[in-house]
């Protein structure tokens, strides 16, 4: 039976916290901190707010840990709390400003698209431009779209994992993902038409 020591140890820590041993929670934080920070950063895109938001997520997790019933992995359960917390944050967030992409000439943006299409390695400057473009498109996307796009495209989670975190069916995730991508491209088209 496969039972990696780390999982057994994590289970033991969780049970200790559920019994009221608060100091065991520090061990769980150290185990999952990096992943939570990454998710918060990719969703929120503000370096100076990552620490505070991550703290709030762990505090919520501590308060609700007695409700954790070991049916999903602790990381997934924690990811769900993080996703919900960031979702509430994103709904309050303001829209982003203009992107570097629009400062490029027509020729420049065409070359960029060709390079991206061929999956050629982008130059450092091109990388900054496309990253900024994607950042701004994500920033203006509705919170639900942003959530699902970040989990899939940036966190590289499978559709099944996303379904578990967001408590949705797999088919629902697929449909929502496709719609989110489509809306993002519609926004890109609108910006282009205004250019």
């Amino acid at each position: 039976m496969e039972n990696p020591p780390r999982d057994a140890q994590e289970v033991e820590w969780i049970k200790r916290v559920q019994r009221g041993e608060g100091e065991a929670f520090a061990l769980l934080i150290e185990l999952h901190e990096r992943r939570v920070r990454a998710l918060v950063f990719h969703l929120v895109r503000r370096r100076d707010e990552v620490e505070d938001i991550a703290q709030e997520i762990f505090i919520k997790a501590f308060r609700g840990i007695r409700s954790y019933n070991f049916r999903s992995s602790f990381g997934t359960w924690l990811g769900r709390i993080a996703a919900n917390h960031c979702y509430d944050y994103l709904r309050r967030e303001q829209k982003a400003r203009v992107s570097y992409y629009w400062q490029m000439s027509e020729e420049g943006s065409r070359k960029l698209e060709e390079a991206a299409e061929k999956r050629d390695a982008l130059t450092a400057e091109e990388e900054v431009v496309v990253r900024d473009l994607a950042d701004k498109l994500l920033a203006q996307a509705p919170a639900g779209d942003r959530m699902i796009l970040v989990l899939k495209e940036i966190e590289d989670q499978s559709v099944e994992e996303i379904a578990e975190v967001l408590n949705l069916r797999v088919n629902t995730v697929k449909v929502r993902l496709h719609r989110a991508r489509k809306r993002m491209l519609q926004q890109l088209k609108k910006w282009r038409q205004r250019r």
Partner: protein
Amino acid sequence: MRCDEARESVEELRGDALPAPIREHLVTCAACAAYAREWRLVEAGLRALAREPVPAASLGFAARVVRRLEGLAEAGRKSEELWERAGRRFVYATLLLALTTLLVLLLPSSGPLRAPPTTEAYFAGLEVAATANDPLFADEASSDFAPGRSGPTEGSSAKPR
């Protein structure tokens, strides 16, 4: 092949060569070809975002969270104690009030602070009426021996016994 099928495949087949039916569709459908180009651009941006370094874990993050939790627990305990104290005082005050009310209702009618009951007042009234003209029980207000007076005054017909 339908356009929505082709576009979904373009989105999903990241890094993989597109199958022939999809490539053929993109050649014949300008709208889907444009969609594919735009998606590749955005996809490149999303991949670039994924490569961006995540803010490093600050030293002592876990300890800070645990300290904050302890602080919140302490604040919660103090709040509970305050309510408990207020609750106890309220209960004591209510008991005292109930006891006082009970005493007022149950205590006998006699006593320095209690007015005489109706029957006693009646007989007291009769006694006053009966002794009103009796010189022995004359109004003390008109007596020579009223408090403050030293002796019989001139012209007074009342004589001490």
